[in-house]
């Protein structure tokens, strides 16, 4: 499996896949200058990986996203949904700051149309 290890910057999240646990993790804020450029390798990796694997866990822990990042994350969720429909086992854990009154609503907004097990988990800010 191809590795994926992108370290966080002030405006882009950490994106990494641990082959030992099979968990893809995205954490931090996401407002890169060019989100499409930033997420392009992530989407390519995900597309390839979903063809090779039978199961995938994805952990999101992103406090803020700009509009283009939201579009890219929705594209990622679409790919996972297609894989789930094709018989793969996908699980999404969406972590949110329990002290942020808007964060749960935002998580539910992402979860709304996704046909993949989607767990919304509160964490201490």
């Amino acid at each position, binding site marked *: 499996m191809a590795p994926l290890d992108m370290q966080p910057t002030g405006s882009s999240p950490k994106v990494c896949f641990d082959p030992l646990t099979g968990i893809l993790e995205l954490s931090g804020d996401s407002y890169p200058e060019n989100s499409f450029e930033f997420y392009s390798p992530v989407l390519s990796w995900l597309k390839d990986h979903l063809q090779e694997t039978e199961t995938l866990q994805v952990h999101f822990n992103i406090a*803020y*996203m*700009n*509009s283009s990042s*939201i*579009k890219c994350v*929705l594209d990622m969720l679409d790919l996972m949904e297609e894989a789930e429909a094709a018989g793969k086992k996908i699980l999404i854990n969406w972590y949110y700051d329990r002290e*942020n009154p*808007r*964060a*749960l*609503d*935002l998580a*539910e*907004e*992402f979860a*709304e*149309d996704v046909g993949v097990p989607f767990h919304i988990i509160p964490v201490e800010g």
Partner: protein
Amino acid sequence: MTPRKEKTVIKDTVVQEAEEILSLHSGEASLLYSKFKALLHDYEKLLHKLDKVITISDKYQVQLMEKTDQLNSALAQLNQLKKIILPICMFCKKIRTDADYWQQIESYFAEHIEVMFSHGICPECMKEKYGELLANHKD
């Protein structure tokens, strides 16, 4: 949790016109018909995604604005405290808030910067106030 509001889904004229065209040719097994139907389906999915991006983005903007307001208000309080010289009683440490009114330091800070105090006794005061008692207790 706040109740979810009814959503306004973008329904543009392109979709309406395309649906009318499709209804005129419904049942046709032509390649053009099926391609047109697939294109319309993709277009509707794209519209839905656009609607979703806007909705989520607006919510992030509200969150940002609320945080900005909180920061501005905290900054205003901080600046207010930085600019003043607090007159304080050199014996009891009460703070003078106007000409005749002296306020306990704890209540002053609780009121102005939401700092709460928890009371304890430092070693020097312990010795001064209870030194004799402690010495007797040891004996």
